[in-house]
């Protein structure tokens, strides 16, 4: 029997968090190997484990997969969270890519200079309520089903719910005008695998603090 997937990253959300969410949603237990010192980082690169000298990297099924999207695509396909045919996959891809654009803004926010932070947060709020949430509210309204695509759980639902938790951390009122999206968040959060992941003590990571950010800067020579 294959071992558990091994996630190589540092102990923070960053670009690995959506992978943790998707594995958790698929009910897959995983191990984490945290990069904590410059020595850890050098070893990983010198041992030839990282195709492009970057993390995230996930060891699974005999592969050392890098590039966030490649990792997510593999997990989604393996655990049947990627639609049943090429047209459903196209829809899932479109929704997922839009979500990734918004998620990117959250991921890089901690690295933003303090004097630009307010402007960046304002932009995130605007994009959330004007560009992205209206799309997903409309999708759910149009078919009246419990999931975004194909009347069954897919990665699109998981990525959206993850994103909604970040939106809530910034400003819970942003979800006020999107009742169907809110309901999806509740439904997905109540799935047994998700419920477990959302408990304290799980492998879900909190927002990064100043100390961890400094540590990351040291390890990567400024990530």
């Amino acid at each position, binding site marked *: 029997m294959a071992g558990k997937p091994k996630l190589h990253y540092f102990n923070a959300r960053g670009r690995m968090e959506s992978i943790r969410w998707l594995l958790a949603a698929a009910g897959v237990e995983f191990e984490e190997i945290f990069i904590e010192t410059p020595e850890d980082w050098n070893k990983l690169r010198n041992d030839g484990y990282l195709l492009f000298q970057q993390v995230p990297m996930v060891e699974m099924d005999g*592969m050392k997969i890098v590039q966030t999207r490649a990792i997510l695509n593999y997990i989604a396909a393996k655990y049947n969270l990627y639609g049943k045919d090429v047209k459903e996959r196209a829809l899932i891809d479109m929704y997922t*890519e839009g979500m990734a654009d918004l998620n990117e803004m959250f991921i890089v926010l901690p690295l933003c200079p303090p004097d630009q932070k307010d402007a960046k947060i304002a932009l995130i709020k605007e994009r959330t309520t004007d560009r992205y949430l209206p799309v997903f509210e409309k999708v759910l309204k149009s078919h009246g089903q419990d999931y975004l695509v194909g009347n069954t759980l897919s990665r699109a639902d998981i990525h959206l719910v993850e994103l909604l938790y970040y939106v809530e951390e910034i400003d819970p009122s942003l979800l006020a005008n999107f009742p169907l999206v809110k309901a999806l968040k509740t439904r997905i959060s109540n799935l047994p695998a998700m419920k477990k992941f959302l408990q304290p003590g799980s492998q879900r990571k909190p927002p990064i603090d100043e100390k961890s950010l400094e540590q990351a800067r040291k390890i990567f020579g400024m990530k």
Partner: protein
Amino acid sequence: MAAKPKLHYPNGRGRMESVRWVLAAAGVEFDEEFLETKEQLQKLQDGNHLLFQQVPMVEIDGMKLVQTRSILHYVAEKHHLFGKDLKERTLIDMYVEGTLDLLELIIMHPFLKPDDQQKEVVNMAQKAIIRYFPVFEKVLRDHGQRFLVGNQLSLADIILLQTILALEEKIPNILSAFPHLQVNKTLKEPDAELDLRTTGS
């Protein structure tokens, strides 16, 4: 018979160029509706033709596909350019994603301040030569096959070729240390099915 795909984008490379390459490689004829004014973009947005109010958008098989990667995946899968199984697909994904990181520098280059542009060419060249090209050179050397994955043309080869040619426009000898990439590039240049030279603006 299905209508030709219709590409909506300004008359320039940008994020649509990869899509043009893949369609051409697949032998698919396509139409282009160039966005030349703000009003045209507004019209597309107001008409709800753009899921996230953005281009690229490709009308294909009854869908209005947006998001570059979604479009590339759909075309690649439809035209057998995405490997024969999940493992090959994952390799192709990894190689494409790495190459797209490099291509992103090229796409953004025209929008940099003139003073920053020359510095960025140096940065692109370094990334290509130190991080990306050695990986693909090793892949080709290790399996000795003509194409990156599965001994047949895939999305990975096409996006890499696009990127190499774009870099050569700025740094003509950029492949000089990579003999296997030179061969891979030659094998993909004009042949009966792939009239890639006519692509691009």
